[in-house]
C-alpha cells in the first residue's frame, strides 16, 4: 500500500476510519459491505474513491457522512468518534462540518434555486439575513447561477441542478464535502465542468473533498485515488497509476 503524505500542512486527519466493518442484514442473510477498512483523509485533500459496484464505495461515504453507523471499528470525523455521538450530535456534525453532493442532485423541488442554497444556512441559524444573502449570492456567482436565483429545480438542466447542489453543499463553508458519484447522471462535458468547479473550490477554500466515481477522467483530478475491492482498500494510488491499472484491467477482459 502506497501511503501519500498530506497535501496541506495539517497533520491530524479530518476523516479517520480504523478497521471498519459494516454488515447489512437482508432478511436472514448477512451481507458484508466493508470488511475492515482503514483510511485517513487529511484536510485539503481531493480524494476519489474508486472501485466496482458492490465494492463498498457508497457504504464508506455513508459512514464518513454520519448518515450510517459502522458495525464495528472506529469512524472519526473532525476528531470525533461518531459512535459516541447522539443522533442529535450527528445531525449537528452533518450540518456544520459536512457538505453533501448527491448523484441525483436531491434538490427540494418546491423551493427556488436561491432557497435551496439558503436552506442549510437557515438550519444553522448562525447568520443574519443580510449575511445569508451575501453568502448565497457569492456561491451562486461562483457556480455561475446568479442569473437563475428564482428558478425552480425542474426548470434547470441536469448540470445546472448539480451546480446548485454544489453551492448548497458549500454554502455553510464545511470542512468536508462528500460526493457520491456526482457526475453519474450527467453527460461527460457537464460532469467535467462539475469536477472542475469542485476542484477550484478545493483549491480556493481548502475544502476537503471525498468523492466516489467510476469515471477515469473524473478520477484524474484527484490528489489520490483510493481503490476499494470487496469491502477493503485495495490500494491508494495516484490518478496516473489508477489510469494505468484501469487500462490494464480493460485489456485483461
Amino acid at each position, binding site marked *: 500500500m502506497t501511503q501519500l503524505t498530506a497535501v496541506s500542512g495539517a497533520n491530524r486527519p479530518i476523516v479517520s476510519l480504523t478497521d471498519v466493518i459494516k454488515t447489512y442484514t437482508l432478511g436472514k442473510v448477512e451481507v458484508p459491505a466493508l470488511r475492515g477498512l482503514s483510511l485517513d483523509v487529511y484536510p485539503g485533500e481531493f480524494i476519489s474513491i474508486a472501485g466496482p459496484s458492490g465494492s463498498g464505495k*457508497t457504504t464508506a*461515504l*455513508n459512514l464518513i*457522512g454520519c*448518515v*450510517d453507523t459502522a458495525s464495528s471499528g472506529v469512524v472519526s470525523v473532525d476528531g470525533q468518534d461518531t459512535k459516541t455521538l447522539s*443522533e*442529535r450530535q450527528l*445531525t*449537528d456534525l*452533518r*450540518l*456544520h462540518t459536512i*457538505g*453533501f453532493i*448527491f*448523484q*441525483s442532485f*436531491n434538490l*427540494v*423541488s*418546491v*423551493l427556488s434555486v436561491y*432557497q435551496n442554497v*439558503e*436552506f*442549510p444556512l*437557515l*438550519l*444553522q*441559524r448562525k447568520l443574519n*439575513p443580510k449575511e*445569508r444573502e451575501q453568502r448565497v449570492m457569492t456561491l451562486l456567482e461562483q457556480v455561475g447561477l446568479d442569473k437563475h436565483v428564482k428558478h425552480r429545480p425542474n426548470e434547470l438542466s441536469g448540470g445546472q441542478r448539480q451546480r446548485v447542489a454544489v453551492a*448548497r*453543499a458549500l454554502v*455553510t463553508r464545511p470542512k468536508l464535502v462528500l460526493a*457520491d*458519484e456526482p457526475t*453519474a*447522471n450527467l453527460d461527460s462535458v457537464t460532469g467535467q465542468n462539475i469536477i472542475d468547479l469542485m476542484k477550484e473550490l478545493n483549491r480556493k477554500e481548502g475544502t476537503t473533498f471525498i468523492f466516489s466515481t467510476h469515471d477515469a477522467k473524473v478520477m484524474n483530478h484527484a490528489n489520490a485515488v483510493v481503490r476499494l475491492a470487496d469491502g477493503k482498500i485495495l490500494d491508494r494510488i495516484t490518478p496516473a497509476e489508477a489510469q494505468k491499472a484501469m487500462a490494464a484491467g480493460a485489456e485483461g477482459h
Partner: protein
Amino acid sequence: MGQLKLLVQVAFRNLFASWVNVIIGGIILFGTVLVVVGGAVVDSLDESMSRSIIGSVAGHLQVYSEKSKDSLALYGNMGGEADLRVIERFSDIKKVLEQHPNVKTVVPMGTNSTMLMSGNTVDLTLARLRDLYKQAAAGETPELRAQIDSLKTHVRQMIALLEKDLERRNALAAENAMDPADLRALERARSQEFWDGFEKDPLASLELLENRIAPLVTDGDMVPLRYLGTDLVNYQKTFDRMRIVDGTAVPEGQRGLLLPKFSYEEFFKLKTARRLDIIKEARDVNHRKIAEDPELQRRLKENQTQTRELLFQLDPLKTQQAIARLQKVLGSTDTELEKLLVAFFTMDDANFDARYQQFYAELVPLLDLYRLRLGDELTITAFTRTGYARSANVKVYGTFEFTGMEKSQLAGSLSLMDIITFRELYGYMTADQKDELAKLQEASGVTDVAREDAEAALFGEDSSLVAETSSGSIDEDAQLAGSSQARRQQELALSKYTQQDIDDGVVLHAAIMLKDPDTLEQTMVELQEASKKAGLPLKVVSWHQASDLVGQIILVAKLVLYAAVFIIFVVAVVIINNSVMMATLQRVREIGTMRAIGAHRGFVLGMVLLETTVLGLVFGAAGALLGSLAVKGLGMAGIPAFHESLYFFFSGPRLFPTLQASNIITALVIVLGVSAFSTFYPAYLATRVSPLQAMQTDE
C-alpha cells in the same frame, strides 16, 4: 424566523403539489361547510323554537312543586299527563317569586287532557228538535209547529238513510252482526205508528231516538283535548304570540274556553270541507298535483264515498235546494242527491279550483260548517287527580293561534281555559265554593230533585250539543252523585270570579317571564333558593326542560348533527392519516436529504404538521366562506318546512338561519384539531426517515 418563513413557504407550495392534498382539502372543505351550515341551522332552530315555546306557553321559566312525582312536560309526554303535586295557594308562590328583581310576570297554570266526543249529525238534529219542543212547551206558535214538522221529516229522512246504510253494510258482512235490540229499535223508529204517536210524548220519543238510533250513526269523532287552565287575562298580556282568530277572548271574570284554531279546523269542521281545504293548500302552497299524489287522491275518494255526513245534515227542503244547485253546476238531470254529490266530488287538477269555490258558494250555506259553533257550551269530562270523573260546562268563546305556528299541530293542540274551571275539573275548589257545596249538599239532602234537574240529570245539559254524546260518564256521574248536576248549574250561575279567586286557589305550575333572559341560569338558582327559604320548595326549570320531549328535539337535532360531524371527521382522520402517510412516503427522499444536510427531527415534524395545518386553514377557511355564503343564502330564501309538524320548530313555515361568529370559530377549531390529530402519526413517521434515504439513486 427565516426557518419558519421557509416552512410556511414549503407548506404553501406543497399545498397543490399533490392530488392527495386536494382530496384532503376537499374533505376538510366539506366538513367545514357542514359544521358551519349545520351549526347555524341548529342554532337558529334552537332560537326559533325557543321563541315558539317561550312566547306561547312556557315563558322563560316554569316552576312546580318540588314534591312532584314527575317532571313537568308542557307538551305532554308518552305516558299521559305528568303527575304534579298541587301548589295550594298560587298567591303564596307568586309573592315569593315576584320579589326577585329579574321576574317580570308570574302566570298560574295547570295542564290536563281528556277526550271529547264531537257530536254526530243525528245528535245535532235531535238536540235542535228537543230545543223546539221546549220552546213549544212554553207556548206553541204555528211557526214553531212548522219548524218542528220540518225537523221531524228530516229525522225520518235520516232514519231512512241509516236503514239503507245498514242494509248495505249487512249485505257486505258475512253474518248478520246487528244487535237484535238495535234492529227492533230501528224498525220501531221507521214505523208509521211511532211517528203517529210521537206527539203524545215527544220527549220520550226523542229519548228512544237519542239512546237507540243516534249511536248507530258512527260519524262522531273522539277528539283529544289538552287544555291549559290559566289566568286568561294575564296570560294574554304575557304571551304576545297568542292571537284570537275567531270569536272573542274570554271576558274578564268569566269561565270560558278558547280552542286552538288548528284543532277547531281539524276536529270540528265538516270533514268534506276540511278535506277540500287540505287539498287546496297542498296544491296552492306545496304545488302538489292531484294526478301525482296518492294522498290527495285518497282524500278525494273519501269525499265521494263519505257523503252521508252531508246527506244527514240536509232536511228535505235543503235537500231539494242542494239537488237543484248541483244539477245546475254539473249540468245534470239526475235527481238523486247522493249521485249528484259523487259526481260533484269527482275532481281533478283541472276542475278542482272551480269546484272548491262552488262547494263553498253553493253547498256550504245549506250546511253546518262546524259541528261546534262558537258561543256554544261544551261539556268537558275529565278525571281528577284522584281518578274520578268530573264534568264542567264551558262556553267556547273563540279560537286562537300562536303567531308563526298557525299550521303546527303541536302548538295547535292546547286549548286555553279559565283556571277556575280547570280547578273544578281537577277536583279542587275555592274555599267559597266548598262552603257553597256544603250548603247545597245539605239542601239537596232534604228536598227532592226538581223535575227540571232530574231531566237534566237523565239527558245531560240543556243546549249542550256534545253533552249527550259524551254521555256515559256524565250520566254515571249524575247517578252517582245526584246533587252534582244541581251544584254545577248553581256554580255556573255564580260563575263570575275575581282576581282574588284566581290567586287564592291551587295551581299545578306557573310560568315566569323574565326581564333579562340572559341571566336565566342564575335566576333559576336564586328562585329555587328563595322558594326553599320561604318554605315552599319549588322546582325551577327552564323552558327547555319544561317542554320535555319537545325541548329534547333540539338536543336530538344537535346530537344528530354532531354525530354526522363526528362520523365525517372520523372518516377524515382516517383518510388524512393515510394520505399524509402516502405523501410522506413519496417524499422520503426529500426528507432524507433534509436530514442528511443537517435538519433535525423537530424540523421535519414541524414541517409535516405545519403543512397539514396550512392545508386545514386554507381549505377550512374556504369551507367557512362557502358555508357562510350558504347560510346567507338560506337566510334570505328560508328553509321551507316540508311538513307541518316542523312549523313549530321553525316558528313558522320557513326557517331563516342566521350566522354567528361561534359557528365559524367552532368549525375552524374542529378542522384544525382534526387535521393536526390525524397528522401526528405520519409526522412521527416522517421524523424516522433516515438520512440514508437521500443516498438512494434513481435507478
